[in-house]
């Protein structure tokens, strides 16, 4: 594909027209120069493109929003403009791929402004002009990196997977750990403290199973199943101090349906919660987090570390009663200095009142909101097409649907950026099978704007990519530990056995 950038015209700097600069580019044999578009036929509608960007809000430091034109065409001429400047591109294919350097400069100077992308297409001799795609550039930056696991989208196969970090201002992706480095190992539940890479953990299962923890510059492996817990610890959440990690201990199983659109569900046959003291290598819990009459799961600490949020459902006969399993949002106090869990459980959202189940509570960095997923029953939303994102205002005590983020298919595994203005979540909205990472803006009042699909360099990327993006998490600084350092710690020993402290 040949790309001919015709001109970069800077119309305004600091609010005034200051400079008009034309950069001549060699056209690799293009004899046309800027085509005559004055007689272009105007369709009066938006062009059919993928991914769609019309109406979305993007951060000023996001990678180029490359896309492809879905109708038949031989050439494309694309004008990108904002109050600051404009860029013109010529493509002899249906793919629009912007120069990263130009894009970065253009977008960072177009903050708090609308950007218009006008697409002209040509099949024969005449050009067709479409209505401009318009998106808004927020002044709020997005975290530098996105970390995710790539897994196969089906239900039972997991032999090929990997955890990666992706730069959000470019298309660079770096391996954290994958099945080639550690064959036969399932890696999951990566979790960071406050979007930083200085305290993180990662579970490994099957070959070399255990939990890898990085804290205070030390990389270690532990075994989390103790004599007092019925399984290994999972679904972690770091305490903001870095001294504790809350976990669920679950007995998860998949249930397959014989009929219907939903082929499988995951459900907890048992579930309790424990807290891990990182320095002491020991777990503790309390009766409110490990009740025999309830299933507690998906912990999350408030940013001040004083409350622990989680979801809880009365226990039931499973799998027969799985549709009765509705989880409420609860919280207890937590004293980080004494390591004491409070006794009074506050039910914040009652599943009985809501008529639905809630799951995956994630508190915003300012502590004002909790984003969560609602679903008809259970607490694993990955297979539930009705799973939608909601936001709970902790001051007003109001639960509001994030309509701009939701679709007819699954939305789940959401994560806040460090400034609390961006949310990444997984959605199966494109085809019902593959989970993609979507990014959306949330304003100070908790109101969402239309989200966009994680941009890729090649607009055909999603057509041939056969993995799901699983558990996307923002990260504000690069993950510096190499895959081989992790593999070395994981394989050289079984890992330190964690203890269980009973005196709590």
């Amino acid at each position: 594909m040949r790309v001919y950038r015709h001109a970069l015209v800077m119309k305004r700097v600091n609010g005034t027209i200051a400079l008009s600069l034309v950069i001549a580019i060699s056209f690799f044999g293009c004899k046309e120069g800027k085509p005559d578009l004055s007689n272009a036929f105007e369709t009066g509608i938006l062009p059919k493109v993928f991914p769609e960007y019309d109406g979305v809000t993007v951060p000023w430091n996001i990678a180029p929003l490359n896309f492809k034109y879905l109708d038949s065409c031989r050439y494309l001429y694309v004008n990108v403009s904002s109050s600051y400047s404009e860029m013109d591109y010529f493509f002899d294919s249906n793919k629009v791929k912007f120069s990263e350097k130009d894009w970065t400069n253009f977008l960072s100077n177009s903050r708090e402004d609308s950007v218009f992308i006008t697409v002209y297409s040509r099949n024969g001799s005449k050009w067709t002009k479409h209505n401009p795609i318009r998106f808004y550039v927020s002044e709020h930056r997005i975290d530098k990196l996105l970390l995710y696991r790539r897994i196969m989208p089906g239900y039972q196969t997991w032999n090929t997977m990997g955890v990666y970090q992706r730069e959000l201002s470019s298309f660079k992706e770096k391996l954290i750990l994958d099945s080639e480095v550690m064959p036969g190992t399932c890696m999951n539940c990566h979790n960071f403290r406050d979007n930083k890479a200085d305290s993180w953990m990662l579970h490994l299962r099957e070959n070399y199973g255990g939990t890898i923890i990085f804290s205070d510059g030390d990389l270690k492996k532990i075994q989390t199943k103790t004599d007092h817990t019925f399984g290994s610890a999972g679904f972690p959440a770091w305490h903001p101090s870095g001294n504790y990690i809350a976990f669920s201990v679950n007995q998860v199983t998949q249930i397959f349906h014989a009929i219907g659109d939903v082929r499988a569900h995951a459900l907890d046959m048992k579930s309790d919660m424990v807290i891990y003291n990182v320095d002491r290598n020991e777990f503790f819990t309390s009766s409110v987090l490990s009740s025999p009459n309830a299933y507690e799961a998906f912990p999350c600490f408030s940013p001040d570390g004083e409350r622990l949020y989680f979801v809880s459902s009365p226990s039931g006969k499973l799998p027969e009663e799985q549709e009765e399993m509705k989880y409420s949002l609860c919280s207890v106090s937590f004293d980080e200095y004494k390591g004491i869990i409070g006794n009074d459980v506050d039910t914040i959202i009652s599943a009985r009142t809501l008529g639905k189940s809630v799951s995956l509570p994630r508190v915003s960095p300012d502590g004002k909101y909790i984003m969560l997923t609602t679903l008809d029953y259970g607490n694993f939303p990955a297979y539930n097409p009705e799973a939608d994102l909601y936001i709970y205002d902790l001051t007003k005590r109001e639960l509001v649907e994030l309509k701009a983020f939701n679709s007819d298919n699954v939305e789940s595994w959401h994560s806040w950026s460090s400034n609390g203005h961006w949310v990444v979540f997984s959605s199966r909205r494109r085809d019902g099978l593959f989970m993609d990472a979507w990014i959306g803006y949330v304003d100070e009042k908790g109101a969402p704007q239309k989200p966009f699909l994680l941009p890729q360099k090649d607009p055909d990327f999603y057509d041939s990519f056969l993995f799901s993006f699983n558990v996307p998490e923002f990260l504000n600084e690069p993950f510096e530990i190499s895959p081989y350092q992790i593999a070395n710690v994981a394989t050289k020993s079984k890992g330190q056995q964690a203890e269980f402290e009973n005196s709590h």
Partner: protein
Amino acid sequence: MQINIINGEYKVAEKYLRILETTLFHKKWAKRLLEVLYDESRIAQISWVKEKRPLVPSSEDLRRPNEHIKALNLLLEENPKNQKALHYKLCYHLLSKDVEEFAYTFFEYRDILLRGRIPRVYQEALVVYYINNPDLEIWSEIPVEPATISRFADYNKQFERYEGEGLKLKAKFEETYWFYYHYADAEED
């Protein structure tokens, strides 16, 4: 991808077909399917869709990932003539060395199974079952070939002669179910 089409999950099928459309050997096949993909009446006329759709269960049942027999029973309840499901079930029992369950399934579907020649490995397993249940009236209806019976007698003789030393039996009997039953390590789920 064919399963997606059978289940009417056309968007997912389209993704795989678009990839196959760029390959050398499946290009034409993928293009033909893409032309009719969202046209339900034309999809329903494709021979393998016609064949497989009636086999898809129509009543709800829940099963866990390792409940293979439950899954196969579901297919057989929907269509007792589903030969693949039946043979998968029989072989699952054989691999698990569960000869009782194998024989129970065999007798349950014997009318269907007796329409053709009984596979050698099934005959060998039935001989094992017969040893513990020689009085069942049903044996007269089960065509275990004389060659199988005489080979079993030979296996028994050799087994006693070598005092159960598997390596000595391997050359002659490695392909038999008896050898598998005695010496193979069946994998657990």
